[in-house]
């Protein structure tokens, strides 16, 4: 029931934050209306990183405590993280076309990093499907999730250098809004969007976690049922024949 209330709160804040970002806040002097894309873009990117961090920490938790609830959190983080990563990329592209003139700006480190994140975690989700046994799946996925998370800062760092060492000319970056020199109205709108998306994220994480638990519980029930049926049938092959 509490989760349901959280869902309504999420819906309300997301609608409100979207309305403010689209219709209330004035357009940016340089970027015009395209700057409105920044708000959900930055919020999505932040939640993508948060999700993948949660997945990695849950992986460590599973390896440490061997409690399958950790794995349910891990899969929730990965799936929702992939979704927000896709949103961040889409937002970045829609912003890039009017501002940079191209959908894909290779010199923007964040966009490139995000694309690699998408590849890393789509791989993680595909990989999860290949193991039937819940515990073995949790172990293998935990390891892949941890190594992927370890890779993220290196990816970010290297892409940043790639641009930085390459040439000193700075280009406009999507999260220029975070600049301390930005007008407080813009910062406020961004924070509002961040908060609204984070509440929605929390709601989705809880629901996805419940789904993962239910799936495992159903798998487990089938396994126990088969095991008990085998025990009840007894060792003698003649009975069955």
């Amino acid at each position, binding site marked *: 029931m509490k989760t349901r209330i959280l869902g309504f709160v999420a819906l309300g804040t997301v609608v409100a934050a979207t309305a403010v970002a689209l219709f209330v806040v004035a357009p940016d002097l340089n970027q015009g209306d395209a700057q409105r894309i920044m708000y959900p873009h930055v919020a999505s990117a932040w939640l993508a990183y948060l999700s993948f961090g949660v997945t990695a920490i849950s992986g460590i938790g599973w390896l440490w405590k061997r409690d399958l609830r950790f794995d349910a959190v891990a899969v929730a983080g990965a799936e929702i993280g992939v979704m927000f990563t896709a949103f961040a990329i889409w937002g970045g592209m829609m912003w890039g076309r009017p501002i940079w003139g191209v959908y894909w700006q290779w010199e923007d480190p964040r966009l490139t990093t995000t694309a690699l994140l998408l590849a890393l975690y789509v791989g993680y989700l595909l990989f999860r499907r290949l193991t039937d046994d819940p*515990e073995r799946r949790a172990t293998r996925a935990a390891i892949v999730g941890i190594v992927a998370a370890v890779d993220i800062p290196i990816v970010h760092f290297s892409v940043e250098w790639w641009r930085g060492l390459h040439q000193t000319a700075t280009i406009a970056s999507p999260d220029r809004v975070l600049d301390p020199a930005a007008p407080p109205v813009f910062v406020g709108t961004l924070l509002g969007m961040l908060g609204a998306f984070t509440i929605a994220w929390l709601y989705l994480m809880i629901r996805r976690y419940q789904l993962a638990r239910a799936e495992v519980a159903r798998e*487990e029930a089938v396994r*126990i049922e088969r*095991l008990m049926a*085998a*025990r*009840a049938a007894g*060792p003698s092959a003649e009975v069955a024949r």
Partner: protein
Amino acid sequence: MPQTTIYVSPRSLGAPDRRPPSVRTTDLARLFAGSPALAGVSIQVEAARTIALLGPNGAGKTTLLRLLSTVIRPSYGSAVVDGLDLTRNTDLVRERVAYLSHDTGLYDDLTARENLAFAAAMYGTPDGTARVDRALRDVGLDDRAADRVRDFSAGMRKRLALGRILLGSPSLVLLDEPYAALDTEGMAIVDELLVAWREAGVSVLLASHATDRLAPLLDGRIVLERGLVAAVSGEGVGSAPPSLPGVPAPAAEVAR
């Protein structure tokens, strides 16, 4: 009974009646892709016993041996080897268990001697070179020591895999169909090995269909059928029926 000259590594095992049981399992179960290969096995094997694991194909013999060898982890239930829990003390169990599987685990591109030398390095066998030579002689492969395993027959591969076990110092030896693919001479070597392990106080659990041949070498028998214990007979071996009511505690929640 054949007289043995086979060299089995010394491991100070103590008097059999003062050692913990070699194997004790409780409701041990393992599922593959959702279907139980081992449905719930509770057995006990006393120290220094040679026990045969009998039963039709698909009865769970190989699964039980693989579980005890630590190659695979149990889905449910628990197992203790030499008083050490299989999932909690896996490293210690590995030092005490040797396992001959259907696959020989040999490297085709290495010679027989190189294969054993690698195993000796992995076991940290003291006096490695001498022990490798000795093991090759004990399994009757000393004249083929410099040949690559790729050219070996199935029987020779099996002999070499048996020789590898002699390089460790196990207190429990698990053999899956040790007689399969062997010629008369090879089968005699397995007989000799069983005697040597018995004399050294090493427990042996072997899955086999060669019941007549084994009869004089055995202490007891465990018959598996459909993933459960169907019967137990002989000395130093016992079993309990699997627990039925309620839900068994998942192995992973207990493990580690």
